């Protein structure tokens, strides 16, 4: 009796797969996260000093500013048209130049369109380096080099856009179906002919979609480029901030929001048409 039931239990136990032991891994991950957090929150090591007392003491300052921003002062609008137009022009010019540069560069950076490893690796490495530098750092340095104005802003946008467009488009080429390219090769085409006649038309939708995306990003970025003197509406943001005109500041932010939403809608329609 007892023997039979224990036999049945033993059989059942044997049939249920063992619960996977995940706790050591979970513990490891949580431990690493905790240690990193503790290290970054230690001021003695150069980390961040978490000062909750300041929040408890001064939170009304922030609340006041947000309240001020919630009542936008629309009288500043007429002054914003010119810088806003400049921002839009910079965004378009930056996107256009980078779009032109991105075509050959993405062909160079993708494996199917550039089978030669050394040049592909070189292009990818340079582009990784370009992407590693934050946009406003470019702007700061370029303003110091070529002077205040829209030119450093446009160059910054071009560098930034080339980085992302080439990365995303070359990845699209890498993952695309290569049957057409094989057909081109079988027909005796040279690599350039194959790229131009098969790879390029195939990646056209991905390419246009990324260029539109970079245009959207450009409007957002060129809103702050003015903070370092690189032209556009950011100059006005910096000015209003200097005069503590937070009601005017929120008007500008609102204006940028409307423009960005409008561009997003337009590019969504274009993207849908392309598919």
């Amino acid at each position, binding site marked *: 009796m007892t023997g039979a039931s224990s036999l049945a239990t033993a059989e059942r136990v044997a049939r249920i797969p063992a619960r996977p032991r995940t706790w050591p891994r979970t513990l490891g991950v949580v431990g690493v*996260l905790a240690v990193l957090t503790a290290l970054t*929150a230690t001021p003695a090591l150069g980390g961040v000093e978490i000062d909750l007392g300041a929040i408890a003491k001064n939170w009304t300052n922030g609340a006041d500013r947000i309240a001020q921003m919630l009542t936008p002062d629309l009288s500043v609008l007429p002054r914003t048209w010119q810088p806003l137009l400049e921002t839009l022009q910079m965004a378009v010019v930056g996107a256009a130049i980078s779009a032109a540069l991105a075509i050959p560069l993405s062909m160079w950076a993708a494996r199917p369109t550039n089978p030669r490893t050394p040049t592909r690796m070189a292009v990818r490495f340079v582009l990784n380096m370009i992407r590693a530098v934050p946009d406003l750092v470019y702007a700061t340095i370029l303003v110091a080099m070529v002077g205040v104005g829209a030119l450093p802003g*446009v160059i910054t946008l071009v560098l930034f856009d080339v980085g992302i467009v080439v990365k995303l488009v070359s990845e699209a080429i890498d993952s695309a179906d290569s049957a057409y390219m094989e057909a081109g090769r079988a027909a005796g085409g040279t690599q350039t002919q194959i790229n131009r006649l098969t790879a390029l038309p195939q990646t056209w939708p991905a390419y246009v979609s990324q260029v539109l995306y970079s245009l959207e990003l450009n409007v957002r970025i060129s809103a702050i480029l003015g903070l370092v003197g690189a032209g556009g509406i950011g100059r006005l943001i910096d000015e209003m901030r200097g005069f503590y005109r937070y009601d005017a500041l929120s008007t500008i932010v609102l204006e940028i929001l409307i423009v960005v939403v409008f561009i997003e809608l337009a590019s969504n329609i274009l993207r849908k048409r392309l598919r």
Partner: protein
Amino acid sequence: MTALAVRAPIAPPRPRRLAVRIASWTVAAVVVGAFVGLDIEWDKLADLPGDLVHYGSLMFSDPDWSMLPEALRQTWRSVSMAWLGALLGVVLSTMLGIPAAEGVGPLWLRLPLRGLFAIIRAVPEVVIAIIILTVTGLTPFTGALALAIGGIGTHAKWTYETVESAPGGAVEAVRAGGGGLLATIRWGLWPVISPELASLALYRFEINVRTSAILGLIGVGGIGDMLTTYTQHRQWDTVGVLIIVVIVVTMTIDAVSGAIRRRIMEGAKVRGVDRSS
């Protein structure tokens, strides 16, 4: 002769692409208009390669390596800001983003939450930092808070999009088994979405590393602060060191974090395959 005559009418007519043509001419006009309208002395561009070589040699021919320890210290401060900002931002976005997903939260909760995310997305991080610095001053803590709050805009959006695109089988199973809302989220939703959320969290950290350098411009400390100061003083040999440090650190963090993200996502995929077979 006859063969040609037969074949010619079969060829389909060239599609009329009037709309496409109008669209492309409009785009061309906008681009040309922007080029012409922009107040840039384009002839200055001719000097640019010379300038680049000139300043490039000033920066990189003899970098002032004695500044390296200070640069690394400031980089660590930036990375700390990025890490704490990512941690706090991801926790907040997960808590706010999951209720904002369709099928989880009710409509009266979803709409205001999504509105909040959209507003935060519209405000540049620098402006958020300007507001926060009235509370916590020009400290790295301000930077971390600005990254956390600024990150909610996009990250919470990614979170609810992830939740909405998750396959619903497990959720239905838990609901059919009589689970309440919390049980459904914990056992139906969380196992499905957690790999992607973890991957997105690491990606948020990568973005923050770049953004923290930007926040340095308004003076909250870190490598961006140092870079602005030395650029304004035109100490190019130090700027060279700082740029090298920024590039090396960012690329290293991207590589490590990218490898972990791939492990997370592909690990999840392999487990999925095992289950179905």
